[in-house]
């Protein structure tokens, strides 16, 4: 496999990860916390209405998790395509 092929495949896989993770990012904040908030509020999570919880707590926890998942995925990907040497 040529070097530029390698780079292209690496980039493609990276873009796939980014797309998936950003759709989750969008769903937990803009969808659950804003657009669908009123609908979700009929359910409750402890003392929280669910949509309100997503807007003020849940989305933030998930954001943190998303970045760490990305870090793990990319470290693996770097290794797979031999980009992990400094």
């Amino acid at each position, binding site marked *: 496999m040529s*070097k*530029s092929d390698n*780079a292209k495949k*690496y*980039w493609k896989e*990276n873009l796939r990860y*980014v797309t998936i*993770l*950003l759709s989750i*990012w969008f769903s937990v*904040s*803009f969808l659950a*916390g*804003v*657009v669908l*908030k009123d609908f979700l*509020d009929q359910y409750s*999570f*402890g*003392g*929280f*209405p669910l949509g*309100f*919880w997503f*807007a*003020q*707590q849940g*989305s*933030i*926890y998930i*954001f*943190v998790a*998303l*970045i*760490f998942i*990305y*870090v793990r995925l*990319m*470290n693996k990907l*770097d290794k797979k*395509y*031999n*980009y*992990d*040497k*400094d």
Partner: protein
Amino acid sequence: MTVQIWTYIIVALTFALYIGIAIWSRAGSTKEFYVAGGGVSPLANGMATAADWMSAASFISMAGLISFMGYDGSVYLMGWTGGYVLLALLLAPYLRKFGKFTVPDFIGERYYSKTARLVAVFCALLVSFTYVAGQMRGVGVVFSRFLEVDITSGVIIGMIIVLFYAVLGGMKGITYTQVAQYCVLIFAFMVPAIFISFQMTGNPIPQIGMGGKGADGMYLLEKLNGLSTELGFAEYTKGSRSKMDIFAITAALMVGTAGLPHVIVRFFTVKKVRDARKSAGLALLLIAILYTAAPAVAVFARLNLIHTVSGQPYAQMPAWFSNWETTGLLGFNDKNGDGLIQYSADAMINELTVDRDIMVLANPEIANLPAWVIALVAAGGLAAALSTAAGLLLVISSSVSHDLVKSVFKPDITDKQELVVARLSAVGAVVVAGYFGINPPGFVAAVVALAFGLAAASFFPAIILGIFYKKMNKEGAIAGMVVGIGLMLFYMLKFKFGIFDGGKTAVASLSKDWWFGISPEGFGFIAMIVNFTISLTINAFTADPPEEVQEIVETIRIPSGAGEATH
């Protein structure tokens, strides 16, 4: 010991610490001055980014704002954290790989154009100056309340401290003081939050306490909803802004966060691409500790305030009430002369005025916490304001010394001379920021929120397209930035300052004319979309960027070392 003595001791100790670090970490070269030598560990960079990011607004104002906005306050919570996901996934690793000193550096080289660089310098200065003036003001407010010096002396003391470590240490000094400042500010925020959560709900973790039950067995949020409706306010968990506006403000704050130069530049300081990703994650984790506790503090503080004050006789108010009355941040006007404090959403009946800022600062007093906790809050507020101010000043000074003097006007100066220019511009920036802190033009507070809109409308699209679209050319990028920031400025001037319709007094009546019902705070989202559209349209009708620029783009997409090997 009194609160005042505690405050002096704790503030003096933290200041001594910051100065000590500054002397230990002096910068010897421009590389150390701009990017701390490029060898900061991911954890240290994460802590520094968190302190850099969390300003006086996050520490002092945010919980108070949410306290009065209820659900509507979610825009700050999601907006100011969600931007880090964009930073980590779309910007930080590539900008680190690119390996330059400043954001205008990236724009200038990626778009092979001095004009692009100058436009970027203009945007960076506009965003950073508006932001930094607010920080100096925050320093002044904390000094005046807790140390009883006037605001002017407070600002000057703050200026001297920042001068000391920003000028001496540059990015290197700033990074390590920010690490210390993060520890101070998070401790200062969490200790009272934990105390109060335990007091009110029996659970020491505020994030859980917020959804817990009070002593009377009722959920706090339910109780607060009930009380709010009784007093005529919107239900706390419902809010009153339109969905469209909430959506737009959240998006503008997220994208703005990812486009703020003083945040982006922090990712130039780590060693490897891998470290840039990791430190973005650590930064958000460290920020999230405060950002998930703040809405809890907001609920506790609002309940406490209503309980202590609403319908109670003025004569029986605790000591903190009159302390804050003298600062003018709390006011009582006995309209019906019955000696009781009527608190209501109805302006005709309401007798209590509360400045949002005191909700965090007075919270420990309202909850009767020990004196040292109150003093700690003062030190935390100062740490938050100083750390952000220092980060912004560095952006300003490097924009001048590196992007204007070195890159445009005098390319032949030596590293030593550039370092002198960098230090001088830092001094100049501190003085200007201090001036605006002492004489705040009435619009500073308003503009700080809009700095995000300006960043979203200018930098974000140019950087994203620069990385993800190889064929993006300079004509498109420059036109996009100019139109984006111009449109944002226009909307701000029209709807926030009313300058086309007879000034400030007209602003309130203009809200019905908002485009798509979006407030000026959220308009950055629209201006960003316009920027993207203009960039891509112009790009389609003009020449592709030169081959070597397209190759640079290929290179930055590959993490360090291996990338260089392919070329």
